[in-house]
Structure formats: structure tokens, C-alpha cells
């Protein structure tokens, strides 16, 4: 993922992720403040019950007057106050966390959009998406855990211990004596269990992919009559999951309830020891009751320690994966000059480019294309055709040499200005799931309806668009109807038309289209070529014929240049290429 040119690779962790919360100091303070207040109130309530019991006992045995209603009223109002604070805290801290996560996602998105083609060429879409979704979700858990759960656990447990010790040091010692081993056991078990659940998760993923693959490939399975084998494959992965899940669950059952049991010992032991102190007269029975209530309130926090450990563990890997993307260095420094409104000649000066250090994709290429010409780039697969044209809009930057437009190095232009003036039609016509009109206006969102229709007409797309259920407002893509390869290509061409760029780059795909559609596409391309500089990567040589200039590449080198007739006559590499294509693609001319 990282740019390989940077030698030392900075590591990002949870500390950096917490920085996102730090952007909202007011809300962080408010949330923590509320949390402390709530903990304080919670610790007061058992005290009140203890006070009530002691005074009630004295009232019963010694007849000392006791206004138990006043104590009950105090209890009720403190209880209400605590819940009111919780009611405020919940949404406050949720807003804080979601705002921070939103910031993280937006930064992530921003960083991805700025990364150049070399980055995206290496990156895997599924992986990036899982970073932005499941890893961010893990961070969400972590933010809650770190900001609130950890504070809640640590602060309230420490305060409770202090309070118990203050009431009766021996009882305090007892609680410390059971809490620490429980704490350590839970931490240890969750450390051991983590990888086991991870393995269960991995096996579940494997089973899911068996299911998915089976259903996506249903035609192949049926065609080869492999249903039995598929059931076997499924059962195999299911059994593996089952066995692992059961063993993990048995591991859990043999240990975690044991840790809870250890902590559970606190209560009977406190009852015995505390009771002894009460009988000896060192402790009031109400104080013992408060201790019992304190012990119970720690109990449910013990359960969340394991959860907390898991969250932190998961989140730290997730944070690294997210921040790695956010902080990935940008590869394209921006220039300052605006693109000349009239365009200009395109000059390649001793241009070389390599994707990997050991192999050059292009070496030492020089040529000049006067403004307004139509150039075809030909060569076999892997000759470097796409790489060559990608250097013009700076999808890649040259490794050596220069690419000039109107005498200016492309790297000196503002990236935005440069790309706005270059239209690109990629080999794969990527359309967005939106209406046809929105797709056409993708590069010029403010285009009028007339302009959109005009460009569709020019691209031979108007007729089929009109025939769609809602015409130009038909939603296409995943959410709507799917278009054929030829239709998609024509929409991509129309999209570029609407841009009316000074320079156009067209990677002519050999989509599987029937002859009639192919003819329409050819016609669209022909129109696109009028009055602008055009580079066409031609896969079918019929496209070449309307180019005024042909550039022939072989293994990253420029081997021939000239027009179709000249090159055919010179009997060189171009001639060979055309002939080999003729052999199996064409039927003898009639």
C-alpha cells in the first residue's frame, strides 16, 4: 500500500486515531465530566441504603426517631439526577464518536481520491472497502471502549475499592484479593480466546465463500453435474467451522465461568468476615449491606473487561490499516500554470517509464504531434500503449524525459486544469449507478439537457437511450437496468463528447458487440476526432484507418511512425501485425 520509494515506513496506531477525538475537546470534556458525575452518584446510592438500614435498626432497637421518608426522597432524587445525566451523556458521546468516525472516513476518501494510478493499480478494491467499513467499525468500538468503558471500569473500581477499604480495611483487602486474580484471569483468557475466535471467524468466512462461489457458479456446477462434490465441499467447510467453534466454546466454558466464580467468592467471604465484624461490633450492619451492594456493582464491570480487551486488540490493527491509507504519501505534486485555451502540439521528449524498478514499460520515446491531429497507437498486448497515453493527463508521471503540451511540461500545469482539458475514454466503460443523464454529465454537472442530448446523438447513443424505460432518466447500473457492452461504450463516448476537451484519449475496447453496433461505435469515434488532438489505442485495425498518424510500439519502444499507407508499404512490424490479425479475424475480401 505504501509508496515503495519512502524507505522508512511510519507506523500509525491508536494514538493517532485518538487524535480525531481530540478535535472536539469541548465534547470530550463534557462527556468525561458527565461520566464522572454519574459514577459519583452511583457510589452514593449504596451508602444511602446502608445509612437507612443502620438507622432503621436503631429506630427498631433503641427507638431513636428516624425519618426514613426523607432518606427515601433523597435516594429518589439522586436516582433521578443520575438517570437524567445519563440521558444527556448518551447522545452527546455518540455525536462525538460519530463525528470523529465521519472525519476519519472523509479523510480516507479524500486520500484515496488524490492517489494516482500507480497506487490504485496495486490496491485491491475489496480491501480498501473493508478498511473503510469494518475497520472503522472496530474503531467505533474502540472509541467507546477507550473513552468510556475504560474510564468507567478503572475509575469506578478504584473508587469502590477505596470506599470499601474505608468502611472496613479487612473487607477492602478481601475484595482486592479476589478482584486482582479475576482481572488477571479474564485478561489472560481473553488473550487466549482472541485467536480462537479469530480462527472461528476465518473458518466462517471460508464457508461463506464456498456458499457464494457455489451459487455464483451455479451454471458450471450444473453443467458438469458436480452437485454432490459441491455438497461435500460445503459439508467439509461446515464441519471444520463446527469443530473449531465447539472447541473454542468449550475452552470458554471451562475458563470464563471459573473466573466469574472466583469473583463470586467475594460475596460469601465478605458476608462471613463482615458478619464476624458486625457481631464483634467493629462494623455496622448497614455498612456491610453497602459493601454487598458495591460488590454487586463491580460484578457486572468484571464482565466488560474481556470485551474491552478484545476491542482494543481488534481496533489497534484496524487503526493502523486505516491510517496507513490516510497518510499514504501523494505521488503527484501539483503544478501552477493553467492549461492554454488553444491546446498546442504534444511533444514526447526521450520519455521513459517503469512501473517496477527492474523493468521499463516505455524507454526513450520521442515524437511530436501537431495540435488537431488524430494519432493511432498500435502494438501487441503489453507493448506499452496504455502507459504511453496515460502520461499525458499525468495518470502516471514519466520516470525520465518530458511530456510537453504547447511547450509546457505537463507537470507544470495545475492538475485540475490539465485534466479538465483532456477527455479520456477508458477500455472498460465504467458507468456510475445513476441516471443516464447524470452519467453523461459526469464531467460537466451543469450541462443543459440540450447539450446532453446533442452529445448522445453524436455518439450514436440517442436512439437506444430514448428506447430505455425512462429515456435519459433511466437509472442504470446495479440499481437499475444493465446495458450491453456496446451501449456502455457509447455512453462513455458521449460523456467525453460533452466535455469537449482539447485533447482526447481513447482506449478502443474490443468489446463483444455485434457487427451493427460495431459500425455505430466506429461512426461515433470518427465524429469525436474532428477538431481536436486525439490519441486512439486501436485494437482492431479498422480504427487505425481514420488516423492521420500511426505510432507503432513494441516492448516499450517506438518502432515505427507514419500513416497507414506508408507503414503498409514499408513492410515492417506494422505490416506483420496487420497481417497476423487478418489471418484469423477476416474472411477473404469479397
Amino acid at each position, binding site marked *: 500500500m505504501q509508496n515503495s520509494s519512502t524507505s522508512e515506513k511510519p507506523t500509525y496506531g491508536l494514538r493517532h486515531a485518538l487524535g480525531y477525538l481530540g478535535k472536539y475537546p469541548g465534547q470530550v470534556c463534557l462527556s468525561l465530566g458527565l461520566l464522572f458525575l454519574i459514577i459519583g452518584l452511583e457510589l452514593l446510592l449504596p451508602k444511602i441504603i446502608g445509612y437507612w438500614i443502620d438507622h432503621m435498626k436503631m429506630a427498631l432497637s433503641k427507638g431513636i426517631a428516624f425519618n426514613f421518608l426523607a432518606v427515601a426522597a433523597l435516594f429518589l432524587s439522586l436516582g433521578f439526577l443520575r438517570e437524567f445525566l445519563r440521558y444527556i451523556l448518551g447522545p452527546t458521546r455518540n455525536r462525538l464518536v*460519530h463525528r470523529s468516525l465521519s472525519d476519519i472516513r472523509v479523510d480516507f476518501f479524500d486520500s484515496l481520491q488524490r492517489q494516482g494510478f500507480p497506487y490504485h493499480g496495486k490496491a485491491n478494491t475489496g480491501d480498501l472497502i473493508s478498511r473503510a467499513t469494518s475497520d472503522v467499525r472496530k474503531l467505533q468500538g474502540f472509541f467507546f471502549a477507550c473513552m468510556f468503558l475504560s474510564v468507567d471500569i478503572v475509575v469506578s473500581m478504584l473508587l469502590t475499592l477505596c470506599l470499601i477499604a474505608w468502611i472496613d480495611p479487612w473487607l477492602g483487602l478481601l475484595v482486592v484479593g479476589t478482584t486482582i486474580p479475576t482481572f488477571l484471569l479474564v485478561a489472560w483468557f481473553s488473550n487466549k480466546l482472541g485467536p480462537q475466535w479469530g480462527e472461528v471467524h476465518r473458518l466462517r468466512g471460508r464457508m461463506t465463500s464456498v456458499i457464494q462461489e457455489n451459487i455464483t457458479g451455479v451454471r458450471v456446477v450444473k453443467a458438469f453435474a458436480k452437485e454432490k462434490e459441491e455438497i461435500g465441499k460445503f459439508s467439509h467447510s461446515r464441519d471444520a467451522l463446527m469443530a473449531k467453534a*465447539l472447541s473454542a466454546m468449550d475452552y470458554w466454558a471451562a475458563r470464563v465461568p471459573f473466573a466469574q466464580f472466583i469473583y463470586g467468592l467475594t460475596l460469601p467471604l465478605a458476608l462471613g468476615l463482615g458478619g464476624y465484624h458486625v457481631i464483634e461490633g467493629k462494623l455496622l450492619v448497614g455498612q456491610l449491606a453497602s459493601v454487598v451492594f458495591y460488590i454487586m456493582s463491580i460484578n457486572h464491570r468484571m464482565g466488560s473487561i474481556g470485551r474491552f480487551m478484545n476491542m482494543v486488540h481488534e481496533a489497534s490493527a484496524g487503526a493502523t490499516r486505516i491510517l496507513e491509507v490516510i497518510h499514504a504519501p501523494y505521488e503527484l505534486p501539483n503544478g501552477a500554470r493553467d492549461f492554454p485555451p488553444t491546446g498546442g502540439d504534444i511533444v514526447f521528449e526521450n520519455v521513459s517509464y517503469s512501473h517496477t524498478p527492474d523493468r521499463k514499460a516505455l524507454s526513450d520515446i520521442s515524437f511530436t504531434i501537431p495540435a488537431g491531429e488524430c494519432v493511432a497507437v498500435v502494438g501487441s498486448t503489453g507493448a506499452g500503449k496504455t502507459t504511453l497515453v496515460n502520461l499525458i493527463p499525468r495518470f502516471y508521471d514519466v520516470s525520465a524525459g518530458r511530456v510537453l503540451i504547447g511547450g509546457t511540461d505537463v507537470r507544470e500545469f495545475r492538475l485540475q486544469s490539465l485534466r479538465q482539458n483532456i477527455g479520456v475514454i477508458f477500455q472498460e466503460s465504467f458507468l456510475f449507478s445513476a441516471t443516464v443523464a447524470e452519467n453523461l454529465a459526469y464531467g460537466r454537472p451543469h450541462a443543459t439537457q440540450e447539450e446532453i442530448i446533442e452529445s448522445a446523438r453524436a455518439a450514436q447513443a440517442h436512439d437506444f437511450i430514448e428506447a430505455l424505460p425512462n429515456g435519459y432518466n433511466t437509472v442504470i447500473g446495479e440499481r437499475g437496468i444493465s446495458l450491453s457492452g456496446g451501449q456502455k461504450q457509447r455512453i462513455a463516448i458521449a460523456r467525453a463528447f460533452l466535455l469537449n476537451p482539447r485533447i482526447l484519449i481513447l482506449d478502443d475496447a474490443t468489446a463483444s458487440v455485434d457487427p451493427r453496433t460495431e459500425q455505430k461505435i466506429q461512426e461515433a469515434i470518427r465524429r469525436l476526432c474532428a477538431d481536436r488532438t486525439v490519441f486512439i489505442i486501436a485494437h482492431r485495425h479498422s480504427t487505425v484507418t481514420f488516423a492521420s498518424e500511426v505510432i507503432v510500439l513494441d516492448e516499450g519502444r517506438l518502432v515505427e511512425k507514419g500513416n497507414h499507407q506508408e507503414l503498409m508499404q514499408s513492410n515492417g512490424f506494422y505490416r506483420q501485425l496487420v497481417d497476423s490479425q487478418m489471418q*484469423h479475424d477476416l474472411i477473404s475480401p469479397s
Partner: protein
Amino acid sequence: MSFIEEQLIEEEVARTAIRGTIVRRIWKYIRPYWKSCLITIISTILSTLCDLLGPKLIQVGMDQFLMKIGDPVVAIRGILIISAIYLANLLLSWGLTVTQIRHQVRMGWNALNDIQTDVFRHIQALSLNYFDKTHQGRIISRVDYDIEALDEVIVWGLTALLNSSLTLIGALIFMLRYDWRLSLAVSLVLPPLIYATYLYQKHGLEAYRQIRLKSSRITSVLAENVSGISVVQAMVREERNLRHFSQVNDEYAEKAVYGATLFHTYMPFIGVMSAVGSTIILSYGGYLASRGEITVGEIAAFLLYLGMFFGPIQTMGELYNSALGASASAERIFALLDTLPQVRDRKGSHPLPLISGDVSFEHIHFRYDTTPMDQWILDDINFSAKQGQTIALVGATGSGKTSIINLLTRFYEPQEGRILIDGHDLSQTTLFSLRNQIGIVTQENFLFTGTVLENLTFARPSASRDEVEASAKALGTHEMILGFEKGYDTEVGERGANFSAGQRQLLCFTRAMVAQPRILILDEATSAVDPQTEALIQHALEVLMANRTGFVIAHRLSTVRHASLIMVLKSGKIIESGTHAELLQLGGEYAALHREFTRNSNT
């Protein structure tokens, strides 16, 4: 966001009343594990009783030995005995909990395993018409999400329900035995608690739905931007898209905060009810205690039992919700299990012997489930192909080429007419024996994860490595495979993503070659490759087609010109048939198509 994803989210939040038939059908799956089920129930009941005993012990200890000033030696002995009983109770409860978890998991997971296996098995049996009508995402979610939804209820729901209801009832009984008036007064908190839980579950579900929809929207916007990054950058849309993404994020955050607000209104409400309950005990209980009608230890026990109200009510609220969800899942699962495969082996059908490959279609009429009743997709198709011939099907999209193939492989069955192979009526033979002898290469070029070798032997797992290599050599793909990173042992990524379209196609050819089918079908198999690969494919095709009956569908007329018989289809009818030369001579549809094709490829 993709439409199907939205629908899946809707399915996820769907709730259905629990019907008796559903429960009975689920019970059928649990019954084989009734022993585990019984142990789970017994241990759950006992461990719940152990938990209920705690406050009672504290009360007895307080009242008997701590409140009265009697003989300290007796009191100390008494309190130590109470602690010891409490300890024993704890030990018992621990053992019961472990037993309960081990058995409930075994019962639930085994039953679910059986359900899931049945579903998967049934999907294998279903015919393609089901897959045409049902989106893949949905079918996957039957085996995947719906089972998970049942998991929650079958594995954890039973014990949670038992534990919660017993705790609630038990706590009430213990309270009633102490004092019925105070019990009644404390019970006042129950109705608002139950109503609040109901409201929270109802609105919470809707909030959850909204959150899921918004979060899947974030994913789809991001996914689209990443896959279309080249277009985004080429068209300089970065700023606009960033604004849009940020807006989608804000919408999500808004819904998430709303969901949190609901939760953080419900939880404090429970807290308020708990405070109210405690206050009732401290005030009314105080009044009763001051009159000597209730002991202080009993007050403490009341406070502890009150604490046992809240957990079970929350749990039962959640459980109620997930039970309705699981019931909806179960309905969908059983609906799938009840779907009969359209094409299946008939009673008395016999396996097809080793065939030589004569195929004939007799008066075939065919339409899909989705075709209007007054139309035929194939309208009176008649032809016969002799062993070893290559039949080419030509025609515009929708003319019925693929449908002929679909009938030949018996993916579908014709409404009228019959298909004979070597004189055997297909409808009287077994599916396995037919498909086992047919090889098909489609445009999809679907590969499975696994090694190249595993993919090549997919159809015939018994094929040895030598056989595979011999097939590859005959096809001319051996060199290409050796060129892969680890040759035949190269891992195929998901759906073969690490290979080019042409390589995938050649691998599919090799897979078909290894299968040694008697009849071979190529459906638009040659497209979208560079000239070099295409030459290789052409050669492979000739090798593949030799000595076996072949059916070819191709747009590129160059691939069909050597066929023994070319059939031109139009609107479900064969309008022309003959050899390349004959059809050119005829000067009809084929000749016209051919003229267009030549003009395009030759300038």
C-alpha cells in the same frame, strides 16, 4: 446503493408472527439432540434457582445473626454456616452454568448444521429457473444470514427465555412470601417497564433499519468511487464527490445518533424505574418495618430481588424481537426447502449409457417462466445432428440460440416436443448421466478458488496430472499454464481475477477438454481477447471439436464458417440452415450478416 442490498436489509428487519408449523418444523431438527436439550433445560432451571437463593441467604444471615444482639458465638457460627452455604451454592451454580453452555451449544449448533446442510443440498437440486427469478444475494442470504438469525434464537434464545422468565417469577414469589403488600407496591414498576421495552423494541428496529440503509450507502458510494477512480480523476470530480461522500456520512451519523438517543432514553428510563422501585421499598417498606411487620433483612432482600427485574425484562424484549426476526428467517428458509426443482429425475428414468452424440430436436416449443403465455422463445424447432458434427447457431440477441443449449443440457425442459440423444428421450433419463457427458464453455468463464489443477479437474476429479497436462498440450495451453507463477499449482483468485479474460477462457477450454465430454457446447465463448490469444483459442477450438458433437454460438462469423451445419435463428425459428457455402449461395439472412461482418473487419 445497490437495490438488492436494500432489499436484503428489508428482509433482515422483517418480523413475522411465530406460527405453530414453523415451531414444529424447527423442533424436528432439534429432536435428534433431545438429550442435550433436556440437560440444557434442567441445568438452566437449577442454575437460575441457585441465583435466586442468594438474596434469601443474605436476608436470613442479617435477620438471624446480625440484627439481634444474642450470643456472639452462636451468631458467628451461624453467619459462617450461611457463608458456607452461599459458597456451596456458588460452586453448584458454576458447574451448572458450564454444563448448560456446553449442551445448549451442542444442541443448537447441531440442529442448525442440519438445517443449513438441508438448505444447501436443496439449492443444489433446484433448477435454473429458480436462479433466474431469485437474485444470488438472496439465495446466499438464505444459507448465510437466515441461519445466523436462527442461531441467535435456537442456541441462546431458549435458555435466555427460561432464565429470564424464571428469574422474574422466582423473584416475585420470594418477595410475595416476605410481604404481599410491599410486593404489590414494587410490582407497580413492571407495567411501565414492559411498555417502555415494547416501545423501544419497536422504534429501535426502525432506527436500526435506517442506520443499516445509510451505512450500506456509505459503502456503495465508496466502492463506486474506488472502482471508477480513473473516471473520477479524468473528469476532475474529486471535490464534488468528496462533498457528496461527506454528506452521505452526515446522514449516517444523524441516524446513528438518533438510534443512540432512543437507547439512551430507554436505559435511563429503566434506571428511573429502578430508583422508583427502591424508593417504594425504602419508604413503604420503611413504614412496614417501623411497625415491625417486615424485617430489615427482608428489606435488603427486596432491594436485591428488585435488581433482578430489569435484566430479564430487557432480555425478553430483545428476545421477542429476535424471535420474530428468526421466525421470518425460518419462513424464508422453509419456503426455499418447499420449492420443488422444475427439472428433476422422473420416476422410472434411466441413466444414459455412454453416448456417441447423435442429437435431434423434434417439434420443440419452449418458453421461460417469465415469457408471456402467448409467445414462444423456441417455436417448433426441428433438427438433427450426427455424431462428430459441429453445429453453429447464428442469430441476433434473443433469437433463441442460448435457449437451444439450455434445453440440450436440460437446464430447462420444453413445453412441447422431445429431444433425443442416441435415440434416448432426454426426459426419461437421469440428469447426472446426461450432464456428465456434456461439456460447456460459456462467456462467463467461471473459475473456482483453488489451484489451476483443481479447476482443470473440476469436472473429472479422478483425472491424473499427466492426463491434464496431455489435454493442455493438445490444446496448446500447456505453455501458458507453465508461464503462471506456480504453473499448475498457481492459486486462482476469487473468480479468477488474477488471470486475463483470454487466459480464463483458455483455462475453461482446458477444463472442458479434461472432462472428455461426448457433446461440447461453446456459448459465445470467443470474444474480448487480443489477436495472439485469439489465434491460440482458434486452434484450441479445432482440437476440442474433433471427434465429438459440438454446438457453437458465436458473434464472429469467422469462428463458425467451418461448421458442418449452420442454423440461422430468428425469433425462435430456424430460418436458414446449411453449410457456409450453401448459405452464402442462398443470399438470405446469413449472407447479409456475413457482408456486414466482412465490411467491418476489413477496410
